């Protein structure tokens, strides 16, 4: 079998134009490298900008009713309002903020002094939280409560308060090691808990505790079911969607957090990457056209030989084999070289990105490999289809 392939190859390779194949090779290599580096770059940068929560970019908005008169309780969201939001196409999910209905006293031993303050807690469903921690849960009977603080509280302390009060600046890790004494009271009950800061959120601007704790504690201490939420968090596909903005205006909702800088950056990044990928696709499409023409021409030049081979008993499959092997080798080497280039490039830019991010980013060209495999498979399948079709044309002349 291999010997017969060698012999047919010897027969059929004659009209192969090295020039045409070289053009295809270079063009497809460029196209493939551009596409793969685009997706790889995107998957490398994305976690820095948004924490790799979801594959498709989404953004979070926090909304409240506009405060109209001082002194009144802020208006809560009714079920109908929530449902209306949920039904909008650009809204992926809606979660309510649930506030604590009991009293909380927090105290901390700091530099030999006991600092104590009144606190409040809020909670949102877990899927809206941008901090990933294993200890984010509470069960009845637990004496510790995990807490997530907004990162800007820490900044406020470090860059505002500590400066003026001659207090030392503190790091996230320091805070995480501190135990917070919590005295919780309501109705006729009062208990002490230990609170631990387990993380800092960039997304949610409140003192967060697990949802399971709030709902239990509200009924336990305040003897009330959790009230209808006064703030909502929305996961949206595009925060600047006009439909969304007009809906907010119409219902007098106020946006608490403007789309973040990172989400704008992410959007720009997406546009850039999309442009890069488009350019890559154009390159690849052009190279495919070149290869297609080249294969057609090659088969056309060899049409007599192909006919003769089939007349002495060669099946179309067998005569197609050398061409298929050729395109397979071409495409696999393009893939391999392209991957190597990206691997090298990634090594360079990941160091740079790690500097920006402030922590070491692991570099692995997984995205490029997966995309490349799919892409190569598509190109090879297309090549095979062309070869089969042309050979069928030649063979069917005799049927």
């Amino acid at each position, binding site marked *: *079998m291999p*010997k*017969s392939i060698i*012999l*047919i190859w*010897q*027969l059929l390779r*004659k009209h192969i134009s090295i020039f045409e194949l070289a053009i295809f090779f270079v063009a497809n290599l460029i196209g493939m490298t551009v596409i793969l580096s685009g997706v790889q770059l995107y998957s490398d940068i994305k976690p820095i900008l948004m924490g790799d929560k979801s594959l498709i970019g989404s953004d979070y908005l926090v909304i409240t009713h506009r405060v109209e008169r001082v002194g009144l309780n802020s208006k809560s969201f009714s079920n109908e309002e929530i449902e209306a939001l949920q039904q909008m196409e650009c809204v992926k999910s809606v979660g309510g903020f649930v506030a604590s209905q009991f009293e909380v006293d927090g105290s901390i031993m700091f530099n030999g002094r006991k600092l104590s303050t009144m606190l409040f807690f809020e909670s949102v469903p877990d899927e809206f939280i941008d901090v990933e921690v294993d200890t984010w849960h509470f069960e009845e009977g637990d004496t510790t409560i995990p807490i997530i603080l907004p990162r800007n509280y820490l900044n406020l302390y470090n860059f505002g308060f500590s400066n003026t009060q001659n207090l030392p600046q503190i790091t996230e890790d320091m805070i995480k090691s501190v135990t917070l004494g919590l005295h919780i009271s309501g109705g006729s009950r009062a208990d002490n808990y230990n609170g631990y800061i387990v993380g800092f959120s960039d997304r949610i601007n409140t003192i967060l505790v697990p949802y399971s704790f709030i709902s239990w504690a509200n009924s336990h201490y305040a003897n009330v079911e959790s009230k209808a939420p006064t703030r909502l968090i929305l996961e949206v596909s595009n925060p600047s969607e006009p439909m969304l903005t007009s809906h907010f205006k119409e219902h007098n909702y106020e946006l608490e957090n403007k789309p973040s800088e990172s989400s704008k950056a992410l959007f720009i990044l997406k546009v850039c990457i999309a442009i890069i990928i488009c350019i890559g696709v154009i390159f690849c499409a052009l190279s495919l056209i070149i290869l297609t023409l080249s294969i057609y021409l090659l088969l056309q030049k060899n049409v007599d*030989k192909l006919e*003769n*081979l*089939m*007349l*002495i*008993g*060669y*099946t*179309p499959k*067998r005569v197609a084999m050398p061409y298929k092997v050729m395109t397979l080798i071409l495409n696999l080497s393009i893939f391999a070289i392209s991957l190597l280039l990206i691997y090298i490039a990634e090594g360079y830019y990941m160091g740079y990105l790690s500097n920006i991010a402030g922590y070491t980013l692991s570099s692995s060209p997984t995205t490029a490999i997966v995309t490349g495999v799919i892409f190569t498979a598509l190109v090879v399948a297309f090549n095979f289809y062309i070869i089969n079709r042309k050979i*069928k044309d030649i*063979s*069917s002349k*005799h*049927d």
Partner: protein
Amino acid sequence: MDKIQLYNVVPEIFAHRENLDSDIWHKEFCFEQGRSYLIKAASGTGKSSLCSYLYGQRGDYRGNILFNDENIATFDIDRWCEIRQREISVLFQDLKLFGELTALENIEIKNNITHHKSIKDVESLFEELGIGDKIHSRIDRMSFGQQQRVAFIRALCQPCSFFLLDEPISHLDDKNSDTMRDILLRESKQLGAAIIATSIGKHMNIEYDLCLNL
């Protein structure tokens, strides 16, 4: 496969011709395995067309051709390739050899898919036909008579029920023609295959079972 039946077959271009005086065109005829046929024809009577129809190379005829009661018009390319490997062995009038390959490579390219002859068998056939010294020569450097013998050897590199020989000795002298006949009779006896040979004048010295005028 043991019979090739022709029902009212006529090439498309002869379809409107009246008074065709032929033993085959517009007739019912059956080639049977194990027998030998000589088809005598003047040029332009459709001799090569008949061969192309029987070999699935062309389909521009009217009427029906059946292999073992199966209409060949329904065969696809894969079926034809199977027939060309196992049932019908053909010696084309224009030989259809590959000029840039050597004589031996031309044989191998066929034998590689059928594995019918050993290299030793092939070598001794070259010797027998007087072209033993040409085995490694490129086909396009050989005379037509020599090429005809190479094509003949290639035709022997497969099992078959029918040998279809289109003017097999047109460029051979009597001695070579007799050698070819001896080999052909030997091989066809071994395989129990029929011989269908065409000729426009010169033909192999065989006692044909049937001579037909096309």
